[in-house]
């Protein structure tokens, strides 16, 4: 079976006059997270769309879903964890509790604050995860990336043609993901910044799926202003 996981475990960040998590800010009359959930619901290959949300905001999120989407038995809201991987683990536990985890089960994980994801990206993720076991959505890097080990001087300038910027979704065979995570040492777990790294650390190939430049993450006030502006252009 194929599942969508919308990761929204983060707490409030000051992006407006109130301290509301950014996934709840309105974009053209609708909270960002609702745009994202609706896009996931346009894919009928998903058995369930599970939203991992900060426990403090769980009932608020359920109210928003009820108001904007209504009853939908595909949607499950669960409490997120202490960090991104904790939230992902909670979502997988929910799946395990509903249907158990099958050998071919796939999870498509996506940031709640990337509402500009397209149906094509979602479908390509599912296909790649089914075929290869793991995939990451990327766009080619357009800026030159500079590495500095001390924050003072350039250590290295990697060749740009081999660099990509990671987006989401990131999609996995669930059993492959959990078994790889369990095999990590505590030191390795401490270095995790995203789920794909779990597979990379265990030397399992993670295939690339083409993203869209504007499938960006709304993290700053400028991102939010840009997202709003993008929807008013006639």
């Amino acid at each position: 079976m194929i599942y969508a996981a919308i990761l929204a475990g983060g707490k409030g960040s000051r992006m407006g006059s109130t301290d509301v998590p950014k996934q709840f800010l309105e974009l053209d009359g609708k909270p960002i997270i609702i745009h994202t959930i609706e896009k996931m619901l346009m894919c009928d290959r998903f058995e369930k769309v599970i939203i991992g949300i900060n426990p403090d905001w769980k009932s608020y999120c359920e109210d928003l879903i009820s108001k904007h989407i209504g009853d939908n038995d595909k949607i499950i809201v669960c409490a997120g964890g202490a960090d991104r991987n904790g939230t992902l683990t909670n979502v997988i536990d929910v799946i395990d509790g509903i249907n158990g985890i099958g050998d071919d089960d796939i999870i498509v994980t996506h940031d709640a604050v990337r509402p500009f994801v397209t149906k094509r990206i979602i479908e390509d993720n599912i296909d790649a995860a089914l075929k290869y076991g793991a995939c990451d959505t990327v766009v080619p890097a357009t800026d030159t990336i500079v590495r500095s080990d001390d924050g003072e001087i350039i250590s290295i300038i990697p060749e740009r043609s081999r660099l990509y910027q990671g987006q989401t979704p990131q999609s996995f065979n669930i059993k492959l993901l959990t078994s790889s995570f369990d095999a990590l040492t505590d030191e390795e777990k401490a270095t995790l910044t995203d789920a794909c790294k779990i597979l990379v650390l265990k030397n399992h190939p993670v295939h690339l799926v083409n993203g869209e430049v504007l499938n960006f993450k709304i993290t700053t006030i400028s991102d939010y202003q840009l997202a709003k502006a993008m929807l008013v252009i006639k």
Partner: protein
Amino acid sequence: MISYIYQLIKPKVISVKYKNIDVNNGKVIVRPEYMSICHADGRYYFGLRDAAILRKKLPMALIHECMGRVVYSPDDRFKVGEKVVMIPNAPGEEVSGEYENYRLDSVFSSSGADGFMRELVDLPAERLVSCDGIKPQVAAMTEFVTIPFHAADRFERAVQTGVGKIGIWGDGGLGYLTALVLKHKFPKAKICVIGMDETKLNMFSFVNETYLADKLPEGFRVDHAFECCGGNGSYYAIKQVIDTINPQGTLMLMGVTEDEVPIATRMVLERGLTLVGCSRSGRVDFENAVEFLRDKKALNRVERIISETVEINSIEDIYTSFEKDLVNPFKTVLKWNI
């Protein structure tokens, strides 16, 4: 939900517009899968329309020939996953006796509103016709097939003498489909096609006669005519029709021209001819066209006018598809992956 719309912002330049689709607006949401390029799209794309028209209409998404798959339905009229053809005409207020496509307040996708080059399209259920079971590349061209169905309907109402012998001027896709539909609607009619390209005329295997326009036999006559040339060819076709049509014949005008075309009205008057202008189509034509395409032989014949199918994975691929369409003899179909 945010959806991507691929708009032509000026000739040969496409840019993405982002639109919030209200999922609760009672409309069906369709993911386009296959579409085909119409000459009208090409005229916008290459900037061949009048500059004032381009200024008024752009930015605008092109394409009005399209099929897709339902991804959301507010009720049970359509089911998720069902393949559908989209009707580009949003009819205005109903006027008794008037076809929906001629109402002054009707809006046509890719002319007065965004066409179907979109990530997702939301349409009222009555603007969709199920095409499950029909090869999707062919179903994409359904709108094109509706044009001769609509013209045949108008012809049937206009014709004053027996159907007899029908001449079709034009050996392109429109001429081909018009011949096919007329053969289907009027099996006893004698259909002859007049064109400029012998290779293209050879495609019309199912008609009674084909002729090169400059080699019409002495004494050639038709009872009625369908002009399917458009562009510069319209003038010569209409002139030849008027020279060869029998008295009280009906001339159906179907080809689109940018320039005004002089017509020998003296001969129109003398022969008592009826000239009928035909453009676009309505829901009933879509239902008839889909039914027609369910016949395997008809589908096979329509499929023959697909010159090329182009995979669209990027905006660059859209540019390539229009360049290819310029040189393709018949239709360019797009597999819409973006």
